[in-house]
């Protein structure tokens, strides 16, 4: 059973769930009766979750306090899964992956090649939408990790994802008997290699130009095939462009995707009139001093003796329209606020360059079949 592909109603034992603690802290969790999920806000028994609908907020009273700690239990989606991954992992983030899927026209009929698998986050997004995903990973340890994860997540059971251990730059994409792969080759078809017939290719490789020449063996021969190469450096793009042209790929376009996220914030509205009023308040208090100095000066001019004019104690300013600066909580209803947006403090200013191209191997038609069809439609 896939934890991703079926919309689930309630949280059940054995489910893979995502626990949302904060926006930057989302943790995967296998629901296990009797166990507990520990955070610094408290310990959440899985039994409190079981039977509740997905999306439920779970509360526990924090130890030695009258307050509650809260988490939300969510059903995983590829996008939430991506957010839950540690940031240091190489991840294709949603702004890129969603654009690539749109450009590659991913849908239930798509047959997609992904190399390499990497963290597997993009594989999840592909798996949701496409007819079949052929994922390739050359790093053996990462292959094993991804294979295990795909299995645990139910992607393999869903039947539309296979993963193969392969250096596609050296050995191409063909999947044969004996390969280290989750692809099931049954002897019945009389072939000893998988029928791939890909129409969408995603290459996240350091040297896509070494893989591109192998593609002709596995792409569908008589339909338009779309390709995307994901490369961080511009020199990789340059070399990719060269090879794409050499191997007959056309409609070449390279783009960058810039994803941005904004926080919703409030800024205190501090009006000029209030600021002036505050200063008037200060001035008034000082006025007494000024008056006093003026009197003293007059007396001086008139040769009167300086009296022991008692210096009045200045009272603290009473008028404080903006509160005590940073100690006012944002949104405090005693003040007026303006809604403002603030870009995230650290932005992902570059992920990779995306080079797209397409190819139709055989720009031909089945003349016999076409003639029949035309004949059928004659007036």
């Amino acid at each position, binding site marked *: 059973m896939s934890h991703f*592909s079926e*919309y689930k*109603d309630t949280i059940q034992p054995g489910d893979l769930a995502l626990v949302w603690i904060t*926006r930057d802290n989302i943790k995967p969790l296998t629901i296990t009766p009797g166990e507990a999920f520990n955070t610094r*806000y408290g310990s959440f028994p899985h039994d409190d979750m079981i039977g*509740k*609908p*997905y*999306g*439920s*907020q*779970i509360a526990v009273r924090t130890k030695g306090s009258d*307050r*509650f700690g*809260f988490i939300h239990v969510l*059903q995983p989606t*590829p*996008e939430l899964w991506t957010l839950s991954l540690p940031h240091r992992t190489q991840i294709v983030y*949603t*702004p890129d992956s*969603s*654009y690539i*899927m749109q*450009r590659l*026209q991913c*849908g*239930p*009929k798509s047959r997609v090649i992904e190399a390499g698998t990497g963290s597997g986050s993009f594989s999840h997004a592909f798996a949701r*939408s496409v007819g079949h995903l052929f994922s390739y990973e050359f790093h053996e340890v990462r292959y094993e990790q991804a294979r295990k994860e795909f299995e645990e997540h139910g992607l393999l059971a869903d039947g539309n994802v296979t993963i193969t251990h392969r250096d596609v730059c050296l050995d191409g994409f063909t999947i044969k008997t004996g390969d280290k792969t989750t692809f099931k080759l049954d002897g019945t078809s009389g072939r000893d290699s998988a029928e791939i017939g890909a129409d969408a290719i995603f290459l996240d490789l350091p040297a896509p130009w070494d893989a591109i020449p192998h593609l002709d063996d596995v792409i*569908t021969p*008589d*339909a338009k095939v779309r390709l995307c190469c994901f490369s961080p450096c*511009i020199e990789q793009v*340059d070399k990719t*462009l060269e090879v794409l042209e050499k191997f007959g790929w*056309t409609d*070449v*376009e*390279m*783009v*960058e*995707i*810039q*994803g*941005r*996220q*904004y*926080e*919703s914030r409030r800024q205190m509205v501090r009006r000029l009139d209030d600021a002036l009023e505050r200063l008037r308040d200060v001035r008034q208090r000082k006025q007494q001093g000024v008056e006093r100095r003026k009197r003293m000066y007059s007396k001086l001019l008139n040769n009167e003796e300086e009296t022991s004019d008692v210096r009045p104690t200045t009272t603290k300013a009473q008028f404080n329209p903006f509160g005590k600066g940073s100690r006012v909580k944002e949104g405090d209803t005693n003040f007026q606020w303006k*809604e403002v*947006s603030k870009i995230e403090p650290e932005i992902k200013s570059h992920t990779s360059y995306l080079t797209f191209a*397409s190819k*139709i191997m055989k*720009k031909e*038609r*089945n003349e016999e079949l076409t003639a029949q*069809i*035309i004949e059928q*439609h004659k*007036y």
Partner: protein
Amino acid sequence: MDPLTKIAYDNHVLLRLPSNNLKICELKPNSDISLGKFGAFRVNDIIGYPLGTTFEIYYDQTEEAPDRSDKSKVNKIPVGKLRILEERASANGPASEDENTPQPELQTFESSESNKNLINIGNKIQKLTMEEIEELKKQSVSGEQIISKMIEAHGGFHQKTVYSQEKYLKRKKQKFAKYFTVEYLSSTGLLHYLIEKGDVVRAMDMSQETMGMMLNLGNIRSNGTYLCVDETGGLLVYALLERMYGGDNESPATGKIVVVHENEHPNLDLLKFSNYSEEFIERHVKTISILDYFEPPIIEEVREAFTPMTDEQLKEMKSNKKGAYYRRLKWYHNQLDIIALATEIQYDGLIVASTLHLPTFVPRLGEKVHGSRPIVCYSQFKETLLELSHALYSDYRFLAPSIVETRCRPYQTIRGRLHPLMTMRGGGGYIMWCHKVIPAQEDIMNVKVQ
């Protein structure tokens, strides 16, 4: 023949012209399609080829060339023959595949090769007059030939840099070449068609990248039931359909899109360009007005107003009264459908592209979204979503509303002259994304930890 990969009769396809203008055509058997100055062709000549194929229109010298002096024929573009082109000059790609034009090498910038000696005197440098070119167009058939003649007559052509030469050629090719590419009508294609037609307002200024991101953030799958508001006239619904069914009328998937509309009748006009059958759309796309959705008919009143007859009763009914009965029966089922859509479904996602005031609209739409399911809301303006996200933030049924933006920046991909395009269309819109959640009872009395 698979209509998803091959050019097939009765399908709508997107034609890309040399100018990169787009045109949507229905491929009626035996008909001709005219591309104006780019020529005309016969539909039968293209069917069967893979979608994505580029065809060049050419005219044999023996054939009757368009006779522009004959006024009655002036609007009738003669149908040409077709041949396959290996590659079209792409918008940002190499300017030309012409063998006479040397491929630019990396770093060819030398001041001696610059345009130093070229002084811009406008059209005077082109010794071919507009009249002569028009004359050539009338006589000749190949754009290539006109361009060659123009280069011969161009006084300054050899003073231009290779780059300028290519630019010139490309511009001229777009002007005189006669070719077109037949593309599958994807949701992106439909969007580009609208933009290119200047109908940016209809598309609510949405960009391809924003549209694609809505589909992923909305976790759109072929087995979900989605609540949707679509003010783009069907573009968004088409994008959902494409992601869910990939153009496949035979798809066994059970997903549905319930479209809530602001006016009395829904506007999904753009679906007329789609290749989904009417039955398919009826099965997978349901529409309901906001009034019916928020104030659905009361079941008791509906039952009071009408009771379906048993088969026996129906048999006894006079045939002249049956018409009225069936109209009424249809109304009855329609009312039941409305009640079901408005009250019985827990939606798997909410996808909104609306200019209604979102802070009052979205929380109410969100009521019927199942816990843990995403809510994705589009707006042309960030300020609108800012107000929405503040409203949702103080409502504990919505988890972590955030405003996201995605922008695509295309490059010129001529090797040796790589750089982002100098200008591009602004806009593209913004997305608010959050998840529906079910607050714990304790939450009411306490502060969220987050």
